[in-house]
């Protein structure tokens, strides 16, 4: 925090932009941007830990975010008892056998001396395990998915309070990160990038296709909320009397109250995370991390366990992304696996971190708010710009219609230009690491 005035100025500027939206458009829109900005800031904090602290190139953010969303579903939805009765046991047994097979294969690989015996044993374990697994798994899945497929057709969750889902989403992402890190972290940086890219695609494929787990593309809707419902507020005479006393319309006031409640929860999480990440960055651990990033060989020569530290920071960063994913799913009230797109959930977060300033937590948070604001606002501004540019063309001309339809894609172009401009002229970002 050497550059305090600059930090305050830039944060003030971004908040000013959001407040301005509140005045010019509507407070609902402004609060939506603000809430998603908070979530984006948390994702950016996670990526900043990995890239800014340790120099790890994780382009699988989308996967960890989606896993967090799955965590929200698994924790907070009510269990579907019939589905559990139909195939719960089979699924659990099958998963245990699948897990046992992999474990047995790993043990066999370590115990048996290299040679033909090892390869043959390994193949035998994997093939037999796979067929046993499929034999148990397939009927169980069919049984579960047959249970009232229009409404449920999945196992449901644990029925716990949804706030518990946030740390649970983080844990789920951390578990996945452990597996990825164990296999891929020893690789060169660009191989790690490809590996994480692949993991993210696979996680999304699982969410889309394993209907017994996440209902797939049928989406899980109606997740429980940590805040009151708008309708309940509107039916609460005390609330209506109070807001009418201030001269507000009860309908608008209720939706703004709900959004403010979310903002409050998210701000608490963000503040705690900033405090934790700042403390970590300024501790001996943080200095060691940066030393490893700047010169791996030297750090290793000083007796630092580079591989273990990389794994640690990779898991921590992914857990934060998972937490953000769970929060986002809670805010949306639904899990829609079909909407996870790498450009939006991986690469946009990268733009946030780079533009904000990699290695600086406040920079990441700033980038999260700023880039999210631009991502949302470029569309109407782009539309206005194109309308202005095509004003001379006759109405109904094919070119004009096409351009107006395409205005939504302006945002990708804009993000690319922003990223390149920042990388070229201010490679350390808006708030550089000190």
């Amino acid at each position: 925090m050497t550059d305090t005035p600059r930090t305050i100025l830039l944060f003030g500027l971004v908040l000013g932009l959001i407040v301005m939206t509140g005045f010019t458009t509507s407070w609902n829109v402004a609060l939506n941007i603000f809430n998603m900005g908070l979530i984006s800031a948390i994702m950016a904090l996670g990526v900043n830990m990995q890239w800014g602290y340790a120099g790890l190139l994780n382009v699988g953010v989308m996967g960890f975010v989606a896993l967090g969303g799955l965590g929200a579903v698994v924790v907070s939805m009510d269990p579907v008892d019939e589905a559990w009765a139909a195939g719960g046991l089979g699924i659990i047994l099958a998963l245990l056998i699948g897990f046992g097979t992999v474990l047995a294969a790993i043990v066999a690989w370590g115990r048996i001396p290299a040679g033909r015996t090892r390869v043959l044993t390994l193949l035998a374990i994997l093939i037999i395990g796979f067929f046993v697994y499929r034999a148990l798994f397939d009927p169980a899945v069919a049984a579960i998915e047959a249970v009232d497929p229009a409404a449920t057709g999945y196992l449901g969750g644990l029925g716990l309070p949804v706030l518990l889902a946030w740390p649970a989403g983080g844990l789920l992402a951390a578990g996945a990160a452990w597996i990825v890190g164990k296999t891929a972290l020893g690789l060169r940086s660009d191989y790690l990038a490809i590996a994480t890219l692949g993991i993210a695609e696979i996680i999304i494929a699982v969410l889309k296709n394993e209907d017994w787990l996440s209902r797939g593309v049928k989406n899980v809707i109606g997740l429980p909320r940590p805040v009151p419902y708008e309708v309940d507020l509107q039916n609460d005479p005390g609330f209506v009397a109070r807001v009418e006393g201030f001269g507000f319309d009860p309908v608008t006031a209720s939706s703004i109250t709900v959004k403010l409640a979310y903002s409050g929860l998210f701000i608490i999480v963000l503040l705690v995370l900033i405090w934790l990440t700042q403390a970590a960055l300024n501790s001996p651990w943080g200095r060691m991390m940066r030393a490893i990033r700047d010169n791996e060989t030297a750090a290793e020569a000083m007796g630092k366990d580079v591989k273990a530290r990389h794994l640690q920071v990779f898991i921590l960063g992914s857990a934060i992304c998972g937490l953000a994913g769970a929060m986002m799913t809670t805010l949306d009230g639904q899990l829609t696996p079909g909407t996870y797109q790498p450009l939006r959930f991986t690469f946009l977060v990268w733009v946030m971190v780079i533009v904000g300033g990699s290695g600086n937590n406040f920079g990441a948070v700033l980038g999260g708010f700023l880039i999210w604001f631009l991502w949302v606002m470029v569309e109407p501004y782009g539309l206005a710009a194109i309308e202005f540019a095509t004003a001379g063309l006759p109405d109904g001309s094919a070119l004009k219609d096409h351009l107006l339809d395409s205005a939504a894609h302006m945002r990708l172009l804009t993000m690319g230009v922003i990223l390149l401009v920042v990388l070229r002229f201010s490679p350390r970002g808006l708030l550089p690491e000190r």
Partner: protein
Amino acid sequence: MVDFLNALVALLNFVIVPATAYGSQLALGALGVTLIYGILRFSNFAHGDTMAFGAMVTILVTWWLQSMGVSLGPLPTALLAVPAGIAATALLLLGTDRVVYRFYRRQRAAPVIFLIVSLGVMFIMNGLVRLIIGVDDQRFADGERFIISARDFKELTGLREGLAIKTSQGITVVVTVIAVALLFWFLNRTRTGKSMRAFSDNEDLALLSGINPERVVTITWLIVAALATVAGVLYGLDKSFKPFTYFQLLLPIFAAAIVGGLGNPLGAIAGGFVIAFSEVTITYAFKKVATYILPEALSPSGLVQLLSTDYKFAVSFAILLIVLLFRPTGIFAGKKL
């Protein structure tokens, strides 16, 4: 015996022919990635979108040609439009190099920085493609659909299984063979190609012996533009053109390049086929083949499909991981052009 022939034809029809076409497309894509890695020394994440851009220009020119009434008879008109696509893509890539990459090359920036810069380029190209042609599926194949259709094959041979070879699949293989032959002739026989290989092997030594690095880089981008456009058009002819699928092709293409050894053109081709064949084999339901070969009593009740097709990315990914864990430089040791 007839059952065996039927099984063989079914296997050819559903596994070998599609996988050969897909493998050729991946190989062309992986060649581009590998060339950039060998000469410019970074992993280009914008490659999938470069392919999409080249294919898009080709499609637009194809539509224009079609509207003028030009056609190639049984062959798709798109073949006539490919040179235009290559030219436009080459301009785009050379422009990007001028405006973006050259700055970092002069600074001798780390490969990771190049990679992140290529993310920015990816955003821009992706946005451009969506802005110009939109996000929807576009079909632009015309001419004869099949070299031999399933029904003709059945009538010809009297077998119960049909073998269909699409024109696009035939063209894919022929064009790939020509492109690869040209590329290897260029790299191994011409002065410029040899200077490229020298540059890739040892940059400093190449500079000492008077090779102009900017010229090498320019030629690399030109070749990459050609390879990417051809790969994109062939993939679009064979399947269909949708910007998002081109972005997703990034994973199998990189897997192919890495499996074969990044920087090694021969490896990229082998890697493309390895990935394509494993993807198609593992996600194909072997019920049909098995019913022909196995005796009645053993005939399978299920589909005999190892993985559903939705998990085809998992296949390229698994192969990638296995190769990286056990042979980190790829099947053919990487980094040799």
